[in-house]
């Protein structure tokens, strides 16, 4: 029976971190902490989880909630402070690339090592190597040291190995987001394949849509405990809703200086650690556009900035509402399109370009949002703050007008 189960798992770490493993650190830092009984930090408290063969469980929650610790324990890395962990012998984990590769060695050598470490004989590992490299599409780079690889290439190599391992359980931590779309699709297909053959999947991700699409169940981990568990779509919904209220809680009270039509707690929300400073709509000629015709080109240009220290990998989202009834006509985010903003420190311009925007004539309003990398709350959210009028002589009904023509065949 291949399945992962965690039963009432608690995990605490010593509070001292790296640097206090010297004699001096022990005397000056550890002993006083132990004496005061403040030497443990609880990362997980009473977490239980069960995933049978072929099942897939997603872990969601903000950074630092304990998702990675949970995955590590499930992988058999480290021992829970209390509780029990059961897992199949052939468990493979893609938790981070540090734990996979030695940068000085070539892709080929690293792949063979990973296979040998996971229980293959050297001869078998060598015969599996071509299949690994083919899946990873790294044949041309096989003899280059892994330190010269991009993150995406490392991911491909790791998955090439995992695809050959056929593990009874596969644990994945967030990493999948670094590959290009086509390769991600290939990995998904492969994972689906493994699941049909009984592999249990346990995956942590900030991408709620990914969890909903790929997992049967989900656990929302918050501050080391399971806040909600159940059907993936339900858990994701609850998480989203909680994020909205988390944003509201963080929004500062309206102060003196308000820019333009935006007012905090009326149509502007968010912690304001990072802000959207300007949103401009531009037409094909690059002119400011409050009005476009159906099917015209439109660029939405945002200027975002972080003034009080850097924020890492924020997400920018745009939503288009129809004013008459509030219907969401379109919504997209840098994350759903796999665009990474990197570290935001100072100012940055982000543009969303529509080659053609086939909205029917009418009045629309745009939301612009800047969110934390894990969607836990918004840094800045401008609600229905930017008007857009779409004009045209069409009398179609509905929301959008795809390019079309009628033909009568007699």
């Amino acid at each position, binding site marked *: 029976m291949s399945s992962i189960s965690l039963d009432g798992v608690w995990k605490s*770490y010593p509070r001292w971190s790296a640097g206090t493993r*010297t004699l001096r650190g022990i005397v000056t830092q550890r002993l006083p902490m132990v004496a005061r009984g403040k030497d443990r930090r609880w990362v997980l408290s009473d977490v239980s989880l069960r995933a049978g063969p072929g099942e897939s469980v997603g872990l969601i929650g903000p950074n630092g909630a304990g998702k990675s610790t949970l995955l590590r324990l499930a992988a058999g890395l*480290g021992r829970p402070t209390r509780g029990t962990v059961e897992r199949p012998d052939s*468990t*493979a984990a893609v938790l981070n690339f540090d734990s996979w590769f030695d940068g*000085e*060695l070539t892709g080929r050598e690293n792949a063979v090592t990973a296979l040998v*470490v996971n229980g293959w004989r*050297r001869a078998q590992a060598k015969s599996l190597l071509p299949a690994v490299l083919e899946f990873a599409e790294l044949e041309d780079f096989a003899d280059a040291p892994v330190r010269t690889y991009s993150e995406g290439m490392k991911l491909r190599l790791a998955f090439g190995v995992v695809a050959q391992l056929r593990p009874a359980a596969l644990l994945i931590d967030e990493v999948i987001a670094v590959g290009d779309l086509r390769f991600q699709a290939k990995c998904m297909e492969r994972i689906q394949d493994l699941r049909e053959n009984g592999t249990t999947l346990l995956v942590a991700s900030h991408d709620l849509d990914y969890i909903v699409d790929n997992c049967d169940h989900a656990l929302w981990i918050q501050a080391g405990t399971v806040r909600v568990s159940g059907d993936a779509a339900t858990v994701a919904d609850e998480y989203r809703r909680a994020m909205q209220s988390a944003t509201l809680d963080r929004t500062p009270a309206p102060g003196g200086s308000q820019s333009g039509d935006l007012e905090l707690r009326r149509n502007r929300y968010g912690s304001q650690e990072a802000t959207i400073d300007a949103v401009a709509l531009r037409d094909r000629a690059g002119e400011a556009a409050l009005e476009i015709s159906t099917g015209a080109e439109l660029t939405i240009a945002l200027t975002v900035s972080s003034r009080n220290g850097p924020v890492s990998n924020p997400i920018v989202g745009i939503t288009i509402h129809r004013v008459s009834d509030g219907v969401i006509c379109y919504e997209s985010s840098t994350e759903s399109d796999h665009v990474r903003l990197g570290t935001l420190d100072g100012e940055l311009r982000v543009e969303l370009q529509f080659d053609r925007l086939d909205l029917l004539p009418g009045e629309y309003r745009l939301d612009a949002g800047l969110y934390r990398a894990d969607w836990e709350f918004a840094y800045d959210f401008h609600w229905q703050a930017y008007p857009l009028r779409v004009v045209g002589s069409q009398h179609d009904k509905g929301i959008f007008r795809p390019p079309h023509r009628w033909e009568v065949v007699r």
Partner: protein
Amino acid sequence: MAPLATTAVGPGQFYELVAHLARRELNAQHRWTVLGWAWPLTRQLAQLAVLVFVFSKLFDFNIDNYGVFVFTGLIAFSWFTSGVQGAAHSVLSQRHLVFQPRFPSAVVPIVAIAVPLVDVLMALPVLLAMLVVSGDLGPTALLLPALLAMQLLLMCGFAWICAATSVYLRDVPQIVLVALTLLWYMTPVFYSVSQVPERYQWVYDINPLATLIESYRAVLIGTPSPGAPEIAGACAFALVLAAAGLWLFRRLEPGFVDEL
């Protein structure tokens, strides 16, 4: 051998892992150097030349066939120091292996011992050639593998203990370095135990590495062999230490991930 690994890894797999990882390590060490594989031997011969010059030309220790005498001790001692020192760093520097769920970490310190064993195997033909030239080589040299095996066992114990404790206390590799430096002077590598005053002899009787080196010389050159109680004591010590080392390593192993 089965209890060596925490996951279901048989002795064949254990050997396979050590062989693969040692080969990998050696490739990485020698890849970018011009002399490549000749480096370890070059290093040992250079050290040998200096020792022979200092202790037969500057200070005359008056030991017959001093070159062979020193080289025998030097090979064994170098293996011991490189192995134990490497083992002390081994787990710390092999994060990427320790973090693999199915990997038995107890392999890592053994790899650190296996790597300098290659130096020994490369120096041995040179030593044997020297013995042939000096006419010392006799049938007792066939006991050499048994002595190497005993040294391997002794090193395993030290390796597991140093590797496991250094994860929790980063001073351990430094402590090991100091201890090995002292050991160099307390082990009869470049001098003979017979030159040591009677009242300090006990130091050499309880030093298993001294007993080992004396034994190497006894079977190769025909110098007087250490007494049976010393040999039995060194064997027992090596066995107990290896068992204790493995026990300690496996006890501390589950915490590695949290400490690294």
